């Protein structure tokens, strides 16, 4: 089994559906947010961190720790509680240190949970979800054509790009109108037919659209057996987070 980022990402795609990940994240979030114990919250943070790694999402340890250090440092500015030590006039107090660590853990833990469970192929339901889907399709087209944005003429090149995308959309709408209602709604330029508004109901069965450099290529195989394994893994992760929460409350 390979463990490079691309293999992990591909494995994550084949194991987990975007919607299932979202639900798992939603279920795990309260167990983290309401965890009263710092060590147990830290354990949950590392669980989420591991999950981010396991699904092959980009994650910089340096960025994570520098943000956490920044939050702790800002909290230390206002002292409260017992003085632990002092550098000249600057006093490091227990209350502000623990408060800073707790806030840093919360901020970074929620970011890890989000990174692990939110994928851009997540299909939101309803007309708002369909509109977001259309925006993502345009986004893919913009990413394809981003080379056409000229730094020397940013205004002009963005204008040309918008005109081109609008013309493509009008042509697609015209073709759909000529083809008649049997052809289904106009899904826009370069649209993945399975990703159109009409396909929302079967989102799980549809291939995942690639989203450029943030992207996730379509999972090559996503049979029901593999999906069951994915659901089991997600359920285990959510249960682990809630077990840590319970242990923090009853210790």
């Amino acid at each position, binding site marked *: 089994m390979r463990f490079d980022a691309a293999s992990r990402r591909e494995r994550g795609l084949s194991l987990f559906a975007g919607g299932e990940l979202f639900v798992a994240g939603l279920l795990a979030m309260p167990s983290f947010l309401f965890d009263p114990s710092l060590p147990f919250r830290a354990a949950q943070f590392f669980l989420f961190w591991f999950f981010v790694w396991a699904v092959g999402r980009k994650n910089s340890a340096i960025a994570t720790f520098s943000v956490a250090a920044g939050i702790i440092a800002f909290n230390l500015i206002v002292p409260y509680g017992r003085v632990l030590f002092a550098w000249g006039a600057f006093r490091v107090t227990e209350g502000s240190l623990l*408060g800073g660590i707790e*806030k840093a853990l919360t901020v970074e833990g929620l970011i890890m949970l*989000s990174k692990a469970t939110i994928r851009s192929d997540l299909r939101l339901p309803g007309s*708002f979800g369909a509109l977001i889907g259309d925006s993502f399709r345009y986004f893919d087209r913009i990413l394809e054509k981003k080379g056409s944005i000229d730094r020397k003429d940013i205004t002009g090149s963005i*204008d040309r790009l*918008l005109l081109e*995308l609008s013309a493509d959309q009008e042509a697609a709408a015209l073709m759909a109108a000529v083809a008649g209602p049997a052809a289904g709604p106009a899904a826009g330029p370069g649209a993945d037919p399975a990703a159109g508004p009409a396909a929302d109901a079967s989102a799980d069965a549809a291939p995942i659209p690639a989203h450029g450099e943030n992207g996730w290529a379509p999972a090559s195989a996503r049979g029901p057996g593999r999906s069951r394994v994915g659901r089991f893994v997600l359920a285990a992760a959510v249960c682990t987070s809630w077990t840590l929460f319970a242990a923090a409350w009853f210790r």
Partner: protein
Amino acid sequence: MPSMPPPGKERDTVALLGAFCLFLSTIEYMIPKPLPFMRLGIANLPLMIAIDLLPAPAYFLLAAIKTVGQGLVSGSLFSYVFLFSLAGTFASALLMFGLRRVLGSTRIGFVGIGVIGALASNLTQILLARAFVFGESAKYVAPPFLAAGLATGLALGLFCESFVSRSEWYARRLR
């Protein structure tokens, strides 16, 4: 969150400008920053361009697409970053749209809108940062954060002014 989709051309404008918000969010995501929610605000540009193109429901739908799309692209939907982004975007969208409609394009230009929008967004985020992350220490973060907002708001306003005066796409959509 608005639930009724706008019709035809208007819907297409919302989807297209929403995509530009996502594109600019991706660029912004790649720019290193001291704290994850401290954004420059370049993804607000499509919201500024849309101010005279869309009616209120479609405009706020675009703001919702920007925030949710940003949450999906950067994977921050379950974090404080999303809450900060949601509050900042809607505070600035409300002020920018309201002022433009109340004062009209002759009394407030895109530079004014850009600066007010950026300050509204940053001020809202500082208040949230005070409540959730920094506590009293937020007052030390506020001056550089607001100064950065002022600078980017000014730059975005100037860019927007230049774009709407030269863009053929904008002229066609305005008709």
